[in-house]
């Protein structure tokens, strides 16, 4: 039996809108995934360090303040520097569609926009890790 999938749900930036992050974390838990939630106001470095300490397979980033184009590249850069490029990263929040291709380019596998059912997040992870969820 392979290890259960471990996901870090993280809130970079300063916004306090954690409804989405908590709902996704809850839904992933219900789907049998191990979830760690960081809480609010995490710096890119804190997020990457937590991901390493907690030995997660996936990071889910949630942001609604509009600072994603500054903070996401920083997180991706740090992940590379720390040789943890194997961690899969996805994101959600208020993210304009035009930004999504740029975020995909820097290595963010998927961006979920408002109105996404949580099932979609679960099946996305099932697809990526078929024998772990």
């Amino acid at each position, binding site marked *: 039996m392979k290890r259960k999938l471990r996901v870090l749900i993280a809130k970079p930036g300063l916004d306090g809108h954690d*409804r989405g992050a*908590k709902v996704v*974390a809850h839904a992933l838990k219900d789907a049998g995934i191990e979830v760690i*939630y960081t*809480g*609010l106001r995490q710096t890119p470095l804190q997020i990457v360090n937590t991901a390493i300490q907690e030995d997660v397979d996936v990071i889910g980033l949630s942001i609604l303040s509009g600072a994603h184009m*500054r903070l996401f590249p*920083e997180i991706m850069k740090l992940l590379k520097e720390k040789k943890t490029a194997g961690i899969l990263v996805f994101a959600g929040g208020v993210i*304009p569609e035009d930004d999504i291709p740029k975020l995909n380019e820097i290595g963010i596998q998927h961006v979920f926009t408002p109105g996404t059912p949580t099932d979609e997040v679960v099946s996305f992870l099932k697809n990526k890790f078929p024998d772990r969820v």
Partner: protein
Amino acid sequence: MFDISKLDDLKKKKENWDMKTRSFMEKHPERMKDFKTPSGTPVKRVYTPVDIEDLEYDKSIGFPGEYPYTRGIYPTMYRGRLWTMRQYAGFGSAEETNRRYKYLLEQGQTGLSVAFDLPTQIGYDSDAPLSVGEVGKVGVAIDSLRDMEVLFGDIPLDKVSTSMTINSTAMILLAMYIAVAEKQGIDRKVLRGTIQNDILKEYIARGTYIYPPKASMRLTTDILEYTATNLPMWKPISISGYHMREAGATAAQELAFTIADGIEYVKHAVSRKLDVNILGKQISFFFAAHNDVFEEIAKFRAARRLWAKIMKNEFNASNPDAWKLRFHTQTGGSTLTAQQPNNNIIRVAYQALAAVLGGTQSLHTNSRDEALSLPTEESVMIALRTQQILAYETGVANTADPLAGSYYVESLTDEMEKQAKKYIDKVKEMGGMLNAIEEGYVQREIHESAYKYQKEWESGKRVIVGVNKYTMGEEKQKLGIMRVDPDVERKQIEKLKKLKKERDNGSIKKDLDEIKRAAETDENLMPFVLKAVHDYATVGEISNALREVFGEYREVIEL
């Protein structure tokens, strides 16, 4: 409210009608097995006088402008003056926001509402490491009085009323507002406006806290004490259910936890020997308006009745003005969809209708594109026009509380009050809101509602047009997107550097030391903050001085 013999007759007739209806339904079944409000109240097929037989007109409903204010806090309501149309706005630099304010005022907006960026709200300067990417994003960036002078440039502060959404740094921003007014030669006694200054809901839902709850409550109470004597026209606290609702609370929870927060603030103020009659006049509230029109109206009516009873009977306020619940309403941001964004215009219109039928004192209507980004100027205009059409074309503002006496609305108002009371009693049992928050109770209740709501629309049990019904696949309606000038951060940091060179840094050091010293005592901090602000100390410097004394709050993570 009704003649008992007539009611008995009616009950028999109703039984008869029920029987006939059951046979009718054998051929024509209803759309759903259960009808419920979003707060879970079962909705009956029809309401009659029997459903409100316990209500006494005088005691429970009364006249507009009279206790218990179910029908509104003014005798003439909107026949006298329409509600204040107040669109929350602010982005980028003080210069840009100042231009948007002047534009909105020209378009007939009647009050200003300031959105600050997150660093300003959390007490960081624009050059702080945590401010990266956030400067000017969700609101205007204010580092010092210099920015505030620009923000209100050419806007006469004795002529407008200004609402500022600011909480943990409310004292600093209010001090800056007073300082700008003084520079415009305006007496602080005539200043009209609101600061949100509701820290409790920050721990529950909105997240812009800095210090631990007890220290924050002290700051809030300092402000209440200062404004009571120095800014008599100012509303120094806006107790907000809005953000709890956005975080997933039901209407009943929004109502209950907001009132419970209110009780906590009044308790603290009274323990400082503040006069409950003055305090009661200073307090205002802020609610959301979501989609279930009647439940929302019932919520607003119940809120007024509940608060009036609490102020009169529990806090023994004797001045009727202290019993009145005044409130601002914003349409529900979380009800907006990214899919088919023009549908949001219609949602906002119904929500605004509910707010007005509920007797709101001021209203912000959301823009259709807020699930995508900050609103564009065109979208803001449609949102403002929605209010103007409501005010001038629909006739709903022509009589006070037009839905009073509706068997359904009265029964639902009663039900909302009952549901809210249950939660309020539970919070009381826990020793009040501070404890309930520290134990994570309120956060947990709200999260559970949020998750339930999510599952309901995902399963199709709850319909969201354009999201789980009548979807348009990949075909998307394209709207322009509002983007904040990416250069704001750099410019703001430059301004800050320049300021720090030009001001008298010796006085700043003294001011900050004084703030720290006073923070250790129980002196009111407001005069010390005013002095520092006048000398151009920054939001970050003052907040950091207080961080040294109070420490910082770490959230309870409940999953």
